[in-house]
């Protein structure tokens, strides 16, 4: 059992005093970010990323930096549930499904039960996903060591086709949004020939669009503008959790073990295949409603209706790091930002990471176990404090969030141009959200655009422009075939519906 030994080594790294302290700081910051409108996992991590530049240069610093940032991510995952249950405002897109039963529970005065159930099932979902990561990622990484450019391109293709095939948004909007991301990624210097592309003589565009700025604008400013439409005040239930409520809820939870397991499986699957936490939470809510004996009561305040989406969202959010670490292909926007972090710190994500940066990888995996335990403790004990943040009037919190976003965009490259771009992306994000253009594929395309193009061009050079290279062996053929199947899935589903309707 190599994995166990590596994991123990990882715990030694993660259990240093500095890393434990960073873990708690990350979790608390993450929960605050998750609670605040306009700040979420993806843009929260993006804003704080520049602060880790100097930290990452000290020995062992990259591990500390990734622990800090990933704990912000776990914290944000926990925090989303607080606003959904108490205020009926999903702080994060993946907690929308939590509002269906969480908010009715809070209205019935059982907010404490709902919160405990949400936090505990988040924890269970994350734990199962981390166990999957621990044992599956070395296998995937070993397998991926054999990959050449055609295989890597096929993996990228699969990632992006999965978005078209599996997202709830209209397929042509997903396609348009994703390709816009690739186009933005292409702006600047061509990595192979050095030619300037799409810069139109502007010096500000020479270095291209940074995805961190896009993330901060799309998710931050866009979200603030959307929240504003609802008005300037939040009305919410009071949050009280005492030990008795926690213990009572814990006594009830084992009854839903089957729902938990099913949701965790859905979540892990959707996280690894880049479906992401949001569809995973909806899907597992739907599955739980169909299979639960109390399915018809869902939506009126069932604890099981909180367990299902929370377990899945957290499992998906966590397992999204598996393809990020092993293949360099993130499964979610936040994982994409973390991947960007690795690149900036000078680490090359992908299978070699498991060979060359053992301390980093296993320190991170160990910190996932510890971070989620820390997270559970922090949220269970401090819920009222976090809920109080939402009682700060919007006229104070909104400008502060915009200032934070502006600082975050500026620090990426120390340029005012990026702050302007953040505003442009913000307006775009507002319009895209309202018209259901998905943002996740856009962000992933900006991050992966150059790498996907490089592997495509390498594969093309190697095959002398022959496209059949993507079907040249069983492995790459299966990946490409699966990708095409997912790409045309909406069309197939539509045809089947037409045939059924006419029959």
């Amino acid at each position, binding site marked *: 059992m190599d994995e166990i030994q590596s994991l123990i080594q990882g715990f030694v790294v993660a259990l240093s005093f500095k890393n434990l302290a960073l873990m708690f700081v990350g979790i608390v910051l993450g929960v605050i970010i998750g609670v605040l409108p306009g700040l979420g996992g993806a843009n929260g991590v993006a804003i704080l990323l520049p602060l880790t530049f100097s930290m990452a240069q000290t020995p062992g610093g990259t591990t500390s930096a990734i622990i800090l940032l990933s704990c912000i991510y776990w914290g944000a995952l926990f925090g989303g549930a607080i606003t959904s249950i108490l205020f009926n405002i999903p702080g994060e897109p993946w907690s929308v499904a939590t509002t269906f039963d969480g908010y009715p529970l809070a209205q019935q005065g059982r907010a404490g039960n709902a919160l405990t159930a949400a936090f505990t099932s988040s924890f269970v979902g994350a734990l199962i996903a981390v166990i999957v990561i621990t044992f599956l990622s070395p296998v995937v990484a070993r397998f991926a060591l054999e990959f050449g450019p055609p295989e890597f391109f096929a993996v990228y293709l699969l990632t992006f086709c999965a978005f078209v095939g599996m997202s709830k948004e209209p397929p042509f909007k997903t396609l348009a949004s994703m390709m816009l991301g690739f186009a933005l990624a292409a702006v600047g210097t061509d990595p192979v020939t050095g*030619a300037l592309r799409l810069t139109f003589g502007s010096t500000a565009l020479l270095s291209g669009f940074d995805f961190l700025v896009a993330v901060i604008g799309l998710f931050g400013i866009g979200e603030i503008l959307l929240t504003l439409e609802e008005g300037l005040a939040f009305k919410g239930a009071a949050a009280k959790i005492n030990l008795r409520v926690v213990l009572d809820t814990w006594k009830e939870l084992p009854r839903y073990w089957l729902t938990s397991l099913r949701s965790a499986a859905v979540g892990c699957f959707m996280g690894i295949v880049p479906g992401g936490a949001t569809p995973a939470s909806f899907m597992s809510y739907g599955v739980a409603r169909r299979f639960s004996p109390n399915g018809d009561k869902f939506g009126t305040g069932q604890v099981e209706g909180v367990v299902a989406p929370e377990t899945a969202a957290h499992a998906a959010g966590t397992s999204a790091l598996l393809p990020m670490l092993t293949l360099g292909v993130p499964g979610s926007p936040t994982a994409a930002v973390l991947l960007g972090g690795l690149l900036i710190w000078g680490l090359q994500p992908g299978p070699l990471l498991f060979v060359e940066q053992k301390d980093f990888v296993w320190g991170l995996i160990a910190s996932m176990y510890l971070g989620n335990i820390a997270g559970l403790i922090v949220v269970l004990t401090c819920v009222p404090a976090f809920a109080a943040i939402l009682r700060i009037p919007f006229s104070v919190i909104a400008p502060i969030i915009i*200032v934070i976003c502006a600082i975050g965009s500026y620090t990426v490259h120390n340029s005012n141009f990026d702050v302007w771009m953040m*505003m442009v992306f913000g307006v775009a994000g507002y319009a895209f959200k309202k018209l259901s*253009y998905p943002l996740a594929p856009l962000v992933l395309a900006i991050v992966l655009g150059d790498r996907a193009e490089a592997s495509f061009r390498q594969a093309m*050079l190697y095959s002398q422009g022959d496209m059949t290279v993507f079907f040249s062996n069983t492995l790459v053929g299966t990946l490409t075939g699966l990708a095409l199947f997912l790409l045309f899935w909406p069309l197939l589903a539509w045809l089947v519906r037409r045939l059924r309707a006419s029959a």
Partner: protein
Amino acid sequence: MSEGENRPAFRHKSAEIAVAALFFLLGAVVVWDSVRLGARWAEDGPQAGYVPFYIGLIVCLASAVNLVLAVLSKRDGDKTFVQVGQLKLVLAVLIPSTIYVALVGWTGIYVASALFIGFFMRWLGKYPWWKVAAVSIGNSVAFFLIFEIWFKVPLPKGPLEALLGLN
């Protein structure tokens, strides 16, 4: 909210058409620039515009489909994109934010942020002046300490910082 505030400022359909058209335009720009660079297969492999050319082409095709779908969408199912009252709130944040971004380049981020937060608290929140001053200035001082002192990340500074010798 009064009757007028709930009136739609934009229809869903017009917004769909506008965004799809914008996508098409962007795609066309990408295609045009890629052709200029050369989007073919040269002696030494694909030219610089080869991949972007097809990306632009897919953007154009996908947005053309979206455009057609938007135009064909039924009139009676036409929802409101944004109401007048909502649009006013959104613009009430968007316009000051744009002015704020412009100010950052001139006065530096700390002064601009203090003014921006102060403006919001006074105008939307109707707070007494002392609270406005405490929060807005306190916020800038806190950010100054965090970024310039602890993390040593320099943020844009203007005439005031120069006057105080903080550059």
